[in-house]
């Protein structure tokens, strides 16, 4: 099953890359079809794997990675169906694969901690992951924006507007995804602290993961604030969204390097 999913995703990537180099619509369509297929099989496997509380994947790092990969695929498929920026697939599909590979190379089950098994916990994880999926898309849009903007400023025109969305469209997508991401991540933090309060009796524990998440939250909050108040659009916004996502990656993976803390299960 693992290899079927990995194979389907890889085929999708192959066709997206072919589209990048040869610009034939058929490649894009095939790549997209493989992505949808991979997404379906992956989701099915994810859901059918749940047979008891201790088998809920969200309790383990591997499952969270897998869930990220699924949600990223899902949101991107939604975007592409609405005809928006298929070119983002060049970045998104590799990310879907990377997160999937991470999920299958980590130990499938850790120690099951029964105290995690409350309704609030999966809600907290789902909100947070959805938020980060949108942040990833804003990161991708921001990256494209920075590349395209640089090309236009330096007067080297590499991409025709038929292939890469315009600066204004990329900027708007960057903004929209940050809005969505911010909403979800705020809900994620709120549900997380509620749950923490029930479990440990306090809403905030200055756990390293909590602090990093707060930092990410502050970056995106300032993104939205500066955009509304100071007219930060385009390049500055794009840079902020890229920094925000890199910080998230550090929070998510680098956190493992700092020992201790309450949040050490994920």
């Amino acid at each position, binding site marked *: 099953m693992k290899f079927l999913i990995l194979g389907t995703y890889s085929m999708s990537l192959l066709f997206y890359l072919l589209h990048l180099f040869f610009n034939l619509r058929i490649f894009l369509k095939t790549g997209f079809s493989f992505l949808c297929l991979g997404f379906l099989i992956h989701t099915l496997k994810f859901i059918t794997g749940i047979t008891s509380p201790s088998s809920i994947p969200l309790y383990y790092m591997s499952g969270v990675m897998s869930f990220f990969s699924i949600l990223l695929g899902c949101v991107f498929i939604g975007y592409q169906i609405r005809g928006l920026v298929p070119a983002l697939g060049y970045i998104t599909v590799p990310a879907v694969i990377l997160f999937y590979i991470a999920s299958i190379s980590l130990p499938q089950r850790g120690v099951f901690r029964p105290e995690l098994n409350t309704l609030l916990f999966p809600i907290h994880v789902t909100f947070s992951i959805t938020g980060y999926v949108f942040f990833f898309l804003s990161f991708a849009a921001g990256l494209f924006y920075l590349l395209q903007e640089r090309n236009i400023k330096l007067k080297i025109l590499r991409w025709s507007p038929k292939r890469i969305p315009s600066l204004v469209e990329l900027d708007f997508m960057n903004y929209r995804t940050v809005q969505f991401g911010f909403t979800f991540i705020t809900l994620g933090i709120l549900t997380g602290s509620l749950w923490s309060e029930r479990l440990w009796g306090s809403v905030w524990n200055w756990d390293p993961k909590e602090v990093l998440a707060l930092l990410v939250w502050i970056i995106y909050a300032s993104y939205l604030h500066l955009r509304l108040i100071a007219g930060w659009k385009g*390049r500055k916004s794009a840079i902020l969204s890229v920094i925000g996502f890199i910080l998230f990656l550090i929070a998510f993976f680098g956190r493992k390097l700092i020992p201790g803390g309450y949040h050490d299960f994920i």
Partner: protein
Amino acid sequence: MISFEEENLLVHGTSFRTSPLDVREALALKKQEEDKLLSTIKERLKVEECVILSTCNRVEFIIYRTNPEKIIDDLIKINEERIGLHLEKGYFYNFLGRDAIKHIFRVTSSLDSMVIGEPQITGQVKSAYEVSLKKGFVGKNLSMVFERAFFVAKRIRRETALGENPNSISSQAVELAESIFGDLSKRKVIVIGTGEMGEIAIKSFISRGISKIYITSRTIERAEELCSIYSGEVIPFKDLYRGLKDVDIVLCASAAPHYLITKNDVKNVMKKRKGNPIFFIDISLPRNIDPEVGTLENVYLYHIDDLQRIVDRNIKKRREEAIKGEAIVEEELGKFFRRVKEERIGPLLRMVYETADSIRRTELEELFRMLGNISGHQKRAIEDFSVNVVKKILHKPVTRIKEMARNGESSFIETFFTIFGDEDEIENRNKG
């Protein structure tokens, strides 16, 4: 039945390669002349099928008739009578057979255009073809050639980047605007100055559906004149800076001896624009916009020299893509002829199938009569069986004969039909 014979096809024409502009202008066909000229050619020259393509760069007569090479002189004569001028033979080129088809493919795909890859020509060929089709001057032969030519043009557009890179300064400017803003239908442009280059650029922006055009100039009369042509709005020159706050694209085609827009001006304007990007196009010589303007954030500035450099590179790229296009034309020519040969035996194959089927039906009736009372289910089973036997027996010889037809092995084909084709003979064999 397709009876396409390649030697019956002629392209007689003149283009920017063979004749001066005034000759082409005189030859260009007016709308009201189409009918008359087509009828004249058809009647006087006994032409079966004819399409006339007339654009500003070429006039071509695509003709299908037996021995078309014999009417070339008459075609020139008809045109001389029509325009009342003497025409040199050397102005015209003539392509016959395979060369003619290749020429039609190349013209339709814009490989033969003055500006290689320009998109209009495909549409022009299409409408010339449709005019003839509607009036009954196109039959199955030319329609086969033209339908294929449209397919080839589409394929080349899809598989190469022939039409992708703009080849003129104004279209490059528009494409840059699209790289920044996307859809231009909600965007506003302000044009400074009323020179010829400015007017060309205005037209390009209108063709992409720009929502609003403001024109400003020191000579207000000319600005008003342009505004009435392109339904724009005049802005007094002194209000230029106020205008910059609201527009997305600034096109400067003025002839001032100094900078009209400086870095400081734009810096102040940008504060009021809330970070919305602005695109300056300076096509004036000397520059009328300070090059430093382009260093500001969310401000993009292109000078005419920048645009020219990009366009030169694009044209080079187009030539490279044209080589790929030519290869596709060759490939499609091969396919076209294989199809013609294959389809030529189509009616004969149909005859074979029909003969076999009529035998099957007669025999089946005979059998049912002999068997007497059998159930509908059994009848159907026997009928299916008979159909399958006929299909399977004919399948291999028919596939082989199609292959032979594609390869042009005509002697085998004849043998095949002396065996299978003649109805009486088959019946005789049956009786025997």
